[in-house]
């Protein structure tokens, strides 16, 4: 079944330019992506053994995807043996309906959430709010963008596009609505302290908690959550009902596999050896004093099964660490919103069209990649991201998904440059007309179909005499 993902209706050039014009976002993303990548290099240098664990972890993830049907059954019986309940959802709609039904059954009015890309993917908040349930994101960055009615700009730094003044003003409105004192300054500490107090009340009163999942262990029926703020702990231990929304690809077979993988998201994503708070849930509460009395796991497919037994199967090993975003030269310039999908950066370029069969993000493989291969090198799960982007470009040509003018211009360009004479002729032609298109020593435009290429690029002009011409003049006759 084809998956469904939300999409931004604005065309790519508009999304791209909005990203390039957002100075706050570019500065923050520059800072955090550099910090994350430097940290990653350092932790792997200090603990060389960790690379072995990573490689064994990749094998475990691959094996799990190959054996997914059995693991889903095993995971479900293990969770139910501990008193949890498992629901399966083939589509985004089914997943939202399942969570809504649980909320109705327990007469829930307020839901607290920890960060989950999957719940963004299925637009869970929208579904719950339409059913009259109030939903509060509790990850600080997610809370900020929820108040601004926006979407994440980086999977690990969702509010990277907001500056302190903007956040303070959002919190002032929020404080007025909640009847609280507004934050007294726009210092990061003060704003964080405000969010702590604001959300603490909600944590204690909410009827249901919703989390995503970083890993699921089939053998033990365990769900693993990784956070630095500790908010997932509160979501999972304060409300009486807990719902874990998990993609089927998060499953691994054995507890031993988890021990290999548990450090990988933090090591590769943010350069920490382990996230500050890592929570392993294997059942509902042991006592009435804390923890949920009822625990549900909603297992979501939404297009994932389609990728199994295809050349793209390794995409399902993604642990959402963000390492590919941190090294991507396109992502670091345009930021997450430009991708128009909940999944941004190289993994978003690959996964968005794959999950939706090119219904969403079909333009991404063509426009959002420079073919530098940095993502493929950075991916801890050895996903062949750059190769997949080339495959997706080929698939777009096969399916005629590109505008005819684009296909035609690339066709003629390749015809022209596939012989030495054709290449030289194009240079002579360019030299003859380039005077019209020069600005400050660079070529900035061209006639006809070639104009499109220059919309976002420039290039040096063709030399008065190329090396080959010089060679022919000086030595050509001598040999």
């Amino acid at each position, binding site marked *: 079944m084809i998956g469904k993902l939300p999409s931004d209706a604005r065309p790519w050039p508009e999304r791209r330019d909005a990203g390039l014009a957002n100075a*706050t976002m570019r500065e923050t993303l520059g800072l955090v992506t550099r910090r994350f990548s430097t940290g990653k290099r350092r932790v792997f240098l200090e603990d060389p053994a960790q690379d072995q*664990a990573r490689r064994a972890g990749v094998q475990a993830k691959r094996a799990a995807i190959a054996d997914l049907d059995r693991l889903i059954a095993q995971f479900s019986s293990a969770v139910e043996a501990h008193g949890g309940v498992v629901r399966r959802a083939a589509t985004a709609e089914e997943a939202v309906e399942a969570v809504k039904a649980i909320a109705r059954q327990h007469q829930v009015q307020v839901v607290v959430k920890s960060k989950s890309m999957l719940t963004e993917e299925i637009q869970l908040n929208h579904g719950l709010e339409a059913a009259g349930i109030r939903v509060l994101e509790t990850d*600080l960055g997610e809370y900020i963008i929820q108040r601004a009615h926006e979407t994440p700009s980086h999977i690990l730094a969702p509010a990277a596009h*907001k500056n302190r003044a903007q956040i303070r003003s959002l919190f002032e409105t929020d404080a007025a609505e909640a009847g609280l004192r507004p934050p007294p300054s726009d210092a990061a500490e003060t704003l964080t302290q405000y969010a702590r107090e604001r959300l603490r009340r909600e944590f204690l009163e909410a009827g249901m908690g919703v989390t995503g999942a970083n890993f699921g262990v089939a053998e033990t029926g365990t769900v693993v959550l990784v956070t*630095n703020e*500790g908010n997932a702990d509160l979501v999972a231990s304060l409300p009486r009902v807990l719902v874990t929304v998990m993609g089927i690809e998060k499953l691994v077979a054995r507890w031993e596999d988890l021990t290999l993988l548990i450090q990988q998201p933090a090591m590769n994503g943010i350069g920490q050896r382990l996230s500050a*708070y890592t*929570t*392993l849930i294997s059942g509902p509460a042991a006592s009435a004093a804390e923890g949920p009395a009822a625990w549900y796991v909603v297992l979501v497919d939404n297009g994932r099964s389609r990728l199994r037994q295809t050349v793209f199967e390794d995409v399902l090993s993604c642990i959402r660490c963000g390492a590919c975003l941190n090294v991507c030269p396109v992502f670091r310039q345009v930021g997450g919103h430009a991708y128009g999908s909940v999944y941004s950066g190289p993994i978003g370029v690959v996964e968005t069209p794959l999950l939706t069969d090119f219904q969403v993000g079909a333009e991404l493989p063509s426009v959002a990649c420079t073919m530098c291969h940095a993502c493929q090198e950075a991916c801890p799960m050895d996903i062949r991201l750059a190769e997949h982007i080339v495959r997706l470009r080929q698939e777009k040509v096969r399916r005629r998904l590109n505008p005819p003018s684009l296909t035609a211009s690339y066709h003629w360009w390749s015809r022209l440059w596939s012989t030495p004479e054709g290449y030289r002729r194009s240079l002579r032609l360019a030299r003859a007309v380039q005077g019209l298109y020069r600005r400050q020593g660079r070529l900035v435009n061209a006639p006809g179909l070639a104009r499109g290429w220059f919309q976002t690029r420039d290039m040096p002009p063709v030399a008065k005499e190329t090396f080959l011409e010089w060679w022919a003049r000086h030595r050509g006759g001598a040999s």
Partner: protein
Amino acid sequence: MTREWRDTFRERWVAQGGHFYEASDPKALDKVLKTAWTDLVGARFPAARVVISLPADLNMWPWDAWLREAGASEVVPWDPSRDMRALAAAAEVGVTGALWLAAETGTVAVAGGPLTGLLPTVLPPVHLVIVGVDALVPTVQEGLRALYAEDGLPPMVKLISGPSMTADIEGTLVVGVHGPGQVGVILYGNTENDGKKESA
């Protein structure tokens, strides 16, 4: 080995923003507790309230008296029949034990159970862990393996590797978001006479 693990744990835990104290002679525990209290609680939270949930083997010491001596205004023991959510939310300090400490990652593992609680680890702004040297393990991998070997996993296990933190506002690191901003470990017992038990 225990000594090396202790050294690595201390180095990494402190680098991640945690506080570390040692009582190699358990008789000095009350003094060490006082030092830790001054650092972590001190003037920041005068007349602080404490929720305490320690494993049975730590109950041989008079924690209630020691904590009051250090400056606590109230010490609430974990009692599943009471409203621990409200009590832990009102406290400034949570005191717990630990399953194990992993050296390589500077990690404290804690678990909830019928008689012990996890809310003291996350609701109060200060979390203090009291644990013996026997709990040291080299890596998270080893700790998790040991956990699995015992029969049946606890419903919730938490691995804590520093204070609650965020860099969500302009990339600035801030501690104490939803969980504690101050975390401390008091390690008791002697790491020096390591191995003597086996040879005896």
